[in-house]
């Protein structure tokens, strides 16, 4: 993987300026309040890539507060506006393509061509979801022909603050595939990145920070999902939780049980949790959009 080394030096003897990978909370990039970090290594374990922040319970709570604060503004932004903001994110992703290819390749142990394919699919996936912002109402909403003199219609609305445990293996395409459908409809998110390959997630956060996305709409934590997710699952100001990235069935059951306390909407891990990840390149369908939408039905009498 000779190309991977270009992240260490430019091949002309110049010493590279390395990046510090931090958390992303409320639009800022803090270190973990715990002061902890952990070593991120290449997929084959041979190379040191970076030290990532090891997020704590306090970081998770701060992230939820930031997500809640951002919810009223983001959920009431026009669908056109949200679509443009998300499309802008895709533009910024494209601009960082080579950086993502390096990070995805090193973190997931992919050959350059496979890493490029994954990154391109992630950018395209983001564009696909961006376009849903002002279309999901058409396919999820309805006008209801009630048997009486009433005008009656149903509209989809975002669920609120959504916690996500991102897929562990597919560090960018998998992440984008779970995150974009959550925020495009107006939810705000707290994401726990892949534990072993968190660097593309943090770079994605840098993209989000420079893409007109209001601070707090996406909050990103790196560290151990097994440590952070329980605090999110039991947090009373989180409305939904996506457990896609939880590979341990026992932990998934514990988290789903904790989530019942305030009746969070729960997306369970894939049926064969712990097995290979779903094929993230497949057509995602509408399931992930629907999972974090409520339906509001409004009635009004008709008469003169």
């Amino acid at each position, binding site marked *: 993987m000779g190309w991977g080394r270009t992240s260490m030096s430019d091949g002309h003897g110049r010493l590279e300026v390395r990046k510090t990978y931090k958390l992303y909370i409320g639009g800022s990039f803090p270190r973990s309040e715990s002061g902890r970090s952990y070593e991120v290594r290449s997929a084959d374990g041979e190379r040191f890539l970076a030290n990532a922040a090891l997020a704590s319970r306090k970081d998770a709570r701060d992230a939820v507060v930031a997500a809640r604060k951002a919810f009223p503004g983001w959920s009431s932004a026009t669908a056109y506006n949200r679509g443009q903001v998300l499309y802008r994110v895709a533009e910024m992703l494209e601009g960082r393509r080579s950086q993502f290819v390096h990070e995805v390749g090193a973190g997931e142990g992919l050959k350059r061509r496979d890493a490029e394919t994954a990154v391109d699919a992630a950018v395209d996936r983001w564009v696909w979801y961006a376009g849903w912002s002002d279309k999901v109402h058409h396919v999820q909403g*309805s006008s209801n022909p*009630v048997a009486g003199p009433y005008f009656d219609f149903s509209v989809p609305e975002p669920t609120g603050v959504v916690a996500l445990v991102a897929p562990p293996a597919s560090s960018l395409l998998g992440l984008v595939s779970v995150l974009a459908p959550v925020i495009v409809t107006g939810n705000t998110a707290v994401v726990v990145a892949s534990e072993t390959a968190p660097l593309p997630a943090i770079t994605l956060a840098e993209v989000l920070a420079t893409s007109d996305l209001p601070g707090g709409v996406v909050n990103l934590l790196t560290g151990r999902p097994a440590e952070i997710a329980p605090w999110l699952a039991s947090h009373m100001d989180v409305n939904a939780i996506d457990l896609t990235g939880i590979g341990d069935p026992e932990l998934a059951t514990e988290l789903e049980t904790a989530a019942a306390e305030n009746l969070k909407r729960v997306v369970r891990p894939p049926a064969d949790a712990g097995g290979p990840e779903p094929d993230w390149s497949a057509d995602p369908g509408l399931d992930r959009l629907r999972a974090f939408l409520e339906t509001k039905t409004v*009635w*009004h009498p008709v008469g003169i």
Partner: protein
Amino acid sequence: MPNFDYAPAPESRSIVDIQPSYGLFIGGEMVDPIDGTRFKTVNPATEEVLSEVVAAGSQDVDRAVDAARAAYDGAWSRLSGRDRGKYLYRLARIVQERSRELAVLESIDNGKPIRESRDVDVPLVAAHFFYYAGWADKLDYAGFGPDPQPLGVAAQIIPWNFPLLMLAWKIAPALACGNTVVLKPAETTPLTALAFADICQQADLPPGVVNIITGAGDTGRTLVEHPGVDKVAFTGSTEVGRQIARSVAGTRKKVTLELGGKAANVVLDDAPLDQAVEGIVNGIFFNQGHVCCAGSRLLVQESVADELLAGLKRRLTTLRLGDPLDKNTDIGAINSAEQLDKIRMLSEVGETEGAERWSPPCELPERGFWFPPTVFTGVSQSHRIAREEIFGPVLSVLTFRTPTEAIEKANNTPYGLSAGVWTDKGSRILWMAQKLRAGVVWANTFNRFDPTSPFGGYKESGYGREGGRHGLGAYLDV
């Protein structure tokens, strides 16, 4: 002015034939329990024992789930959507044909006024079956992708407030999508579900497609936790909803929950007050307030509060409480002694916490479970009667000064099932409807229901929708 009294106008009971005891409806026939015990069901208006029914035991639950599984793997799955639809149309028609009998039976078992069971509950039951019948052969066009598949065996647990209507909300979409069901009616209101068993037989519904087992919480828990169940649908309290959500953790069971509420009914200063009074009355005193989406918190703008409350109190003095089978009755009996205790307890807490209690002059029958229409004024957001679901004819009145404050107060609850708004200004209606975090918003009306109209909650009022195209999603593998 002369006082014109109403003469009694009771609906005849002779149309219903209540058997002294019932078995369980499993595999298309009424069977005796294997390990179930028997308990009595009473008329809440008189405390008269109506019949003896079974509290199904775990072996009974096994048997019902097995019957549903056999029907799912057998005849039902081989049937085309068109033919499933035809069975549902049959059920709708038989409900219409037997509507008077069902309405009387519902009022006897539940305590609700015959005017409501006759004009609301039973017509909506027929409408629900009729609506979902038409979906059975059109699922490809429902927006869930081509050839959407059913889930399998659905465990359905329903409450006592609208017994037959909740049965229809559960069974109609489940069957339309190709599932089979085991349904458990509430402990205190089993009789119309057992009558529905007879309707299934009259319709020649294949055995095991619908199974009805009676019992209390233990039977429900056994059913929900049964490994042979693929889907759980529950309507009831948020506390039981939480237990169900916990008990299915780690399984692949799909769950929909329709739980409690503490709906705000918001009256703005430009509202048509006479209409609002009618809506408030319908919002909280319909079905004795035994309605999860009841408008139990009246939020009224300060400047019109006195006028509105005077009108409301005047209106409440005209409500007639008494015999549920009397066609002039507005307020029937509380469904059970247990529920009456809860309403009394929370009302006493309301007084203790400093709210002012008022009821119209109202004579309560000596036997049976009764509670007068009650209004609490001077209620603050911290009072328990403003936060907890009372599930009875008790209205808590709060005031506000600005629409923004109304929204804050309305949304200041862990629930999010329904809300009401009263104003003559269109832009205000739509603004309020947008800001209210609730699954159903009634503007210048309240407590309207229709099979085409999705119903269900935000937040701790549960998840999933019943009714309309959305209701299909709860019973398909999507």
